[in-house]
């Protein structure tokens, strides 16, 4: 087991290396002199020269990369041109907001996806199965941002029940925070609920046909016990793994959701950075997201190894 985990850890290194190279090379796509573009509105030659110095833009690419990654490894993600603040500070400010949103979204995703998947597997080829599948497909095909706009129209504009935008920290006012985040969390969780439902269904169907479930049934256990105790426990392992992966995808979905609901999180940070041509922030956010995603991926793999007795020995 430990060799397996160790091997996964070693594989991580080249992946993270290439991710960092890729994000570094994004800069090369900028048309014209990067120092000039990165300076943005600021056309002060001193500032431009400072950027050139800082990123070693007058030196060959490998040197530039080493200078950049060296800073990143020391926790220096560069500085926001627009906000005149270190990117790491901005990230530390915005990340908790998005994490709160993602956790709430995950509750929606699993809370809807898993029961729906079980129902459709147990009631395979019935009207239930059909309805659940249609709803899942609807969830997968509805663009997040449109669902968000429609919910705002219904619950904020028409009914006036929930605020259309804004954010309150749960440590400040818990219920106000819930009211502000419940719609975006639902929007974010909704699309993945469909994905989770499909996987739960497939895993359940497979498990239900296995020998031990048949044995459990043959022993005369009632189907409720068989489904919930014997089948579900085994079917859930791959679903939970997928859930960990989807958590990373939620971060990416948060971009538009936060934009629509004006929630000052990670997604809004990258969008604002894009509009302000604040390239260091864009790079920093992509790097952090990708690294989080990779680490979650690893944790999911380790969890899978730990949960699977055949891989444990």
């Amino acid at each position, binding site marked *: 087991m430990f060799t397996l985990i160790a091997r996964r850890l070693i594989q991580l290194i080249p992946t993270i290396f290439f991710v960092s190279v890729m994000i570094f090379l994004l800069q090369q*796509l900028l048309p014209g002199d990067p120092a000039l573009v990165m300076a943005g509105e600021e056309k002060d030659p001193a500032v431009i020269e400072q950027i050139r110095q800082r990123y070693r833009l007058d030196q060959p690419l490998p040197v530039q990369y080493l200078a950049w990654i060296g800073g990143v490894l020391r926790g220096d993600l560069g500085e926001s041109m627009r906000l005149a603040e270190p990117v790491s500070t901005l990230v530390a400010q915005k990340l908790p907001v998005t994490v709160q949103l993602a956790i709430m979204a995950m509750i929606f995703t699993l809370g809807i996806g898993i029961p729906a998947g079980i129902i459709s597997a147990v009631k395979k080829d019935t009207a239930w199965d059909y309805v659940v599948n249609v709803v899942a497909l609807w969830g997968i095909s509805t663009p997040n941002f449109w669902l968000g706009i429609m919910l705002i129209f219904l619950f904020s504009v028409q009914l006036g029940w929930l605020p259309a935008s804004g954010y309150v920290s749960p440590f400040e006012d818990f219920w106000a925070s819930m009211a502000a985040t419940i719609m975006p969390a639902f929007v974010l969780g909704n699309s993945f609920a469909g994905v989770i439902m499909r996987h739960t269904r497939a895993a359940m169907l497979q498990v239900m046909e296995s020998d031990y479930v048949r044995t459990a049934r043959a022993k005369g256990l009632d189907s409720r016990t068989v489904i919930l105790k014997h089948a579900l426990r085994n079917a859930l392992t791959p679903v939970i793994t997928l859930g960990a992966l989807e958590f990373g995808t939620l971060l990416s979905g948060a971009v538009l959701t936060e934009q629509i609901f004006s929630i000052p999180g990670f997604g809004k940070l990258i969008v604002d950075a894009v509009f302000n041509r604040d390239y260091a922030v864009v790079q920093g956010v992509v790097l952090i997201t990708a690294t989080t995603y990779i680490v979650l991926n690893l944790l999911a793999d380790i969890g899978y190894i730990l949960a699977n007795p055949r891989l444990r020995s």
Partner: protein
Amino acid sequence: MAATSTLAAPAADVPHESPGARAWRRLKKRRTAMVALAILVVLTLLAVFAPLIATHDPTQQSWRAVRQAPSWMHWFGTDEVGRDIFSRIVYGTRASLSAGVISVAIAIAAGVPLGLLAGYAGGWVDALISRITDAMLASPFLILAIALAAFLGPSLQNAMIAIGITATPVFVRLTRGQVLSIKMEDYVEAARAVGNTKLRIAFTHILPNVMPQLLVQGTLTIATAIIAEASLSFLGLGQQPPAPSWGSMLNVAQRFLSNAPWMAVFPGIAIFLTVLSFNLLGDGLRDALDPKAK
């Protein structure tokens, strides 16, 4: 193709049916996939014949017709500067469909050769290509596309390139996996033994085996690409105004939600229908092309 399959329909498996004909015969039995295909045909026609179908000029502003509710004159209403929403949606089909199809074409054109190369060459070439693929798959799809589009500069063309590059690793991985599993098959060994070049083997033996999966994955990725394009346009990184695109229409619509909700309803339905159709068609193709299915 259609004629033979109609004749063959009552029989079980006809011995000399081509794989394409068999897939089509199976696909035709799936009602949802056929409905999806019909919707996509209609959408394609809308895109191609947009000037004939649109009731108004999609960029013509009219200060006397600002934010009008749907009516006989303006079927889907008008927007904040009096442009006809129905006509803008019809023209928007062009941006959405071409973005979906072109970005996936870019992804396939780049991904399949790289996957063939990685699977075939092995060694450090494979290691390099695979690690880069891993790195790209490690970055969330939309964030990578947004970052690429941001650095390339906002335009529909750059959005397509950004989405295409972001979608490439999926096809690299798919092709590579297929090459690895087929490489050792007897008939490929035989082809090699009789002196066929690697390139020839790749094109005559390996590629045809990848085709079904490519078709399925390609169709499903078009759905993802269309959502991505709408998202980029929504953020102002795709189609630039005044040219119509569903994503940017939604962006403007959000500001007028309380007094002109129709501005938000119709572009959303258009995106939803298109994406749903590609997803349904992809699912149908997957079932129809599955060699294990009946």
